């Protein structure tokens, strides 16, 4: 999965949760969601990507699309590593 594909899927999830198109939203634009939206975004991303964020994912500091994409990719990578084993 490329970074562009991950970003497209993140934008889809955001569009569903926020009920508006995210295609044109800037990747580093902050203030796209509020604290209530954030709870739904968090769980919707987990469902969409089959991941579980952890306390070390810096969830409190994720404020834009770029940050979300990076967090998702880090989590996907960590889970792939877990599956591969030592």
């Amino acid at each position, binding site marked *: 999965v490329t970074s562009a594909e991950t970003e497209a899927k993140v934008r889809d999830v955001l569009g569903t949760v926020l009920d508006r198109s995210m295609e044109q939203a800037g990747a580093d634009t902050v203030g796209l969601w509020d604290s*209530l939206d954030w*709870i739904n975004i968090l769980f919707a991303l*987990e*469902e969409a990507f089959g991941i579980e*964020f*952890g*306390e070390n994912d810096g969830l409190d500091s994720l404020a834009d699309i770029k940050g979300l994409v990076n967090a998702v990719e880090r989590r996907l990578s960590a889970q792939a590593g877990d599956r591969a084993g030592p």
Partner: protein
Amino acid sequence: MVSQEAGDAAASAVARAGWQGTVFAAEPSRLAVLSLKPAWPLSPLRIAIHRNSGVEIFSAPLSRFLAFAGYLAEYDIGDFDDSLSFGTGGPDATIDLVWLDAARYSLSPTDLVDWLVERLTVRRHAHAHPILVGILASDSETGADIESALIAATHGLGGIVVCDVSRTAGILGPSFYSERTGAVTASPLSNRAALLLARLLGLEWLPAALLPRIKAIAVDLDGTLYEGVLGEDGPLGLVVAHGHTAVQASLHAYAQSGVLLVLTSKNAAADVEDLFARRTDFTLQLSDFADLQIGWVEKAASIERAAERLRIAPDAFLLVDDNLGEIAATSAAISGLRTLFAADPLETSRALSLYPGLVGYPASEADAVRAKDLATVALRDRGAASTRNDADYLRSLGVRLTLAEDPFDQLGRLHELSIKTNQFNTALARFSEAEVAQRLVAPDCRVVSVALADRLSDSGVIAAIQTRRDGPVLLVDEIAISCRALGRGLEDAIIAAALLHAAQELGVSRVRLVVIDGPRNEPARTWVEGLSENLLADGSLPLEILESRLRRVSEVISIGWTGDMA
């Protein structure tokens, strides 16, 4: 030509059917639930939330589930408040939701319940709207104990609904809670638990506190109760999969609990009887059905005929059918009909355990009695035709009316009669359970219940008469008589006996009836109009008129009071 309204109803039914896969999924998905957008009219529902824990984890999905139930949720969410001071939610709230994390208290479960009852009593005295209470306990057993104790302790307050959160906690076990996301959600709940609780709140707990219960389920055969076509495959060629067995078991359980089942099938009657006789593996039996509508007529006509026979309104039905075209056409023909598209048997069985208006209601002995009572309707009707006149008919039935004054133990039934009766309801006051509770103990009010039995059946409590003293007059705020007591000429006896007693108790000599025009209460208005020539100048009625009416029927029926010796 189809009217705009009928076309909209059909389109709404089809759109709601499109939601079912998401709403009734075995495991609801937040992303799928949030993608739902209602395409049908919604009624505003203002929920005042009093909490000490995050509700934002389920508020957005809850809005979608409530939309399926027909509501537009508006939240008035209070601050995190362990003291439960009810700082939010004024009289414009439709309902209160008290949502507490028990882990935040150092109280024992018993002390927590005592404190909660005290707080709920304060709230109940301030507002009459329903109050839902959800408690997140340390484990499902403790939660169930707290819920049981709360139900018992708040019964007398009226209108308090305790959500059985512990049921979901028991199903999910350790995955009910999640510390992982607590910092973001301010709630101990996991995403999975939050979604399941949102679904129960939106489809079961909140609608059960607000909606009249669905009285009847109309169900078809082919494709719904089994796989195959009776007319083509024959009774032994039909396949009953696991999901079909679950659907049949659910319908059988509803029939036992008093929901009326109606079979609406486009088949030959002899084939249907043969089917149920030969398929001993069916959980559902022909005797479970209160009415059979078998033939080649449209479903709407079948439901209307069944409604007339069962003396309920067609919009009190839920139609369960695997044919989306039939669902659309029947919805267009019957305004307010609820529908369930039986596309997949497992989904249908889940839907039957979650459908708004069907579940979450306290077990009503009255409903079970009603179902049995209806089975005697045909017998009673035949009896009426063969007797010479009304008096002979009543005498032959051995009718017994048993009245009770301010019967607190009948609180639930008195409330039910006020909100459910449509045909014989003089004022459509729709008293909440809390309002009825208040009237039962108010010194200037008298509430009289009337129970009915005859040699064919025991109908239970069939009337609630709400009165109060207004100067020298007995003001009758509402007379509600169940439709299952109508058609026997008993209205004079029921009302006169109750009003004469209340007037005597309150020391008044005249009666004034509050009458409100409603869409379906013509029988009540007609009865009241029959008194019009006896009214005094101020619109009140002398007690002598009621005494005269009571004398006429008391010769052929038996009237007593609870506690009277036989």
